[in-house]
């Protein structure tokens, strides 16, 4: 079971500085989504004329399903400066992979809860770290795409673009570097030093 929580309001407003297209995932039954809070926030953004369109659906982690739905809304997406996805980390990565070249941001952090884990067709993974890094890394998760789960950039171990641990795996930070270049967000690499918080207790984490 996972639980998603909205990021803090200041962060969310900074992500919605320009026009945004919104994707809401009302999830599989294994994910608890903050539906009411998200709706209230999006209503405010709609009133402020920030929103080019809203897509609310389930299982956005299914890439085939998602491609069709996003294609149908291509004009609204093109009109937006960024796409904000309210879902678990898998959903954000699925959308960001399909909308290459578009700024795709996570509106939520994903936390683990004991119990049954969702079974969905996945090309990407979410570690439910509770401090989603996707907004700093172009929508590619450094926790799951890097063998060392590094959050401050590439180590010295990539050879010909591949990971020192698994030569069949592309270096996650090379992918991040390329994506940030593509979407014009290289400034994200100048963010403050990131230190992970491994506390799993929700209250402790939010301190």
């Amino acid at each position, binding site marked *: 079971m996972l639980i998603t929580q909205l990021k803090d309001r200041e962060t969310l407003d900074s992500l919605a500085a320009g026009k945004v297209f919104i994707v809401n995932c009302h999830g599989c039954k294994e994910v608890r989504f903050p539906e009411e809070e998200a709706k209230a926030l999006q209503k405010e953004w709609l009133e402020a004329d920030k929103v080019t369109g809203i897509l609310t659906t389930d299982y956005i982690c299914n890439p085939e399903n998602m491609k069709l739905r996003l294609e149908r809304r291509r004009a609204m997406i093109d009109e937006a400066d960024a796409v904000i996805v309210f879902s678990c980390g898998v959903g954000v990565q699925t959308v960001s992979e399909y909308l290459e070249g578009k700024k795709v941001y996570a509106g939520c952090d994903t936390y683990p809860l004991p119990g049954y884990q969702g079974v969905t067709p996945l090309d990407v993974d979410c570690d439910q770290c509770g401090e989603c890094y996707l907004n700093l890394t172009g929508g590619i998760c450094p926790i799951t795409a890097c063998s060392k789960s590094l959050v401050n950039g590439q*180590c*010295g171990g990539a*050879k010909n673009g591949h990971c020192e641990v698994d030569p069949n795996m592309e270096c996650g930070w090379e992918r991040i570097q390329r994506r940030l270049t593509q979407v014009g967000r290289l400034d994200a690499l*100048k963010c403050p030093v990131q230190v992970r918080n491994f506390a799993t207790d929700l209250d402790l984490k939010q301190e």
Partner: protein
Amino acid sequence: MKITEKFDRGEFVVTAEVGPPKGIHIEHVLEEAKEYLSNITAVNVTDNQSSVMRLGSLAVCKALKDEGLNPIFQMTCRDRNRMALESDLLSAGMFGIDNILCLTGDHTKLGDHPGAKPVFDLDSVSLLHTVKCLEEGHDLAGNELVGEPPKFAKGAVVSPCSDSIDAQLAKMERKVMAGADYFQTQAVFEPEKFIAFMEKAKQFGKPVQLGIIIPKNVGMCKYMNANVAGVHVPDEMLDELRADKEKTKAGITGVEIAARIIKACKPYCQGVHIMAMGWESKVPSLLEQAGL
């Protein structure tokens, strides 16, 4: 003595490194260091290099210091969480070891304990940040230290001949931001690539030491070309090593190549760091040939 004092005076800084043995007898390491490395600025001590378990870096640093050498304590983030790293930094401070080099570290899967848990609680950047916190008198969690805090010359590494230069420069910038005072590079065999890298890296305004490995033979170079990230020994150098087997075996060819690389790169950097890998005895002749 902090090696940054020499950089600040504009001196060209020479360092080398030794690897602790897999055992508790270090007489040989100390003798070699005293005989061949006592005229250089400082000696790095590697930390479970290549993810192979060995005697501790901090213990060997202390032993070198007791012998009158100036050690650089290498720390990787592979084997210790933030508490153990901070604690070892304080231990180093207590011993008067004031040069450190912060690395992320190779993955455990590459070494002799492939089943060990890879820690990576911190990484090279957040470790530098942690050192800065201690220097400011508090730990990473914000708790105050008792008494005068330790001060270190904080080193970091960069890979100038990597095939992902943009990602390396971005990481280097983050290390500078986190508090790095100086850099040592991965081994360089392509001076033109190093010079091009330095053109971009000089904007950060931090001293950079050229990394040098003395090429021992063709097999070693081919191994590095296939397996070591950011290292490429060009074909002409391989031919040179092949040409006269006896000369190569005696180390003369390797020293000639290394001296040539140092001479070509010297105008563009602030020092040289020699990873002799068992050929510590060649370091004095290398420095002489390179005019250092």
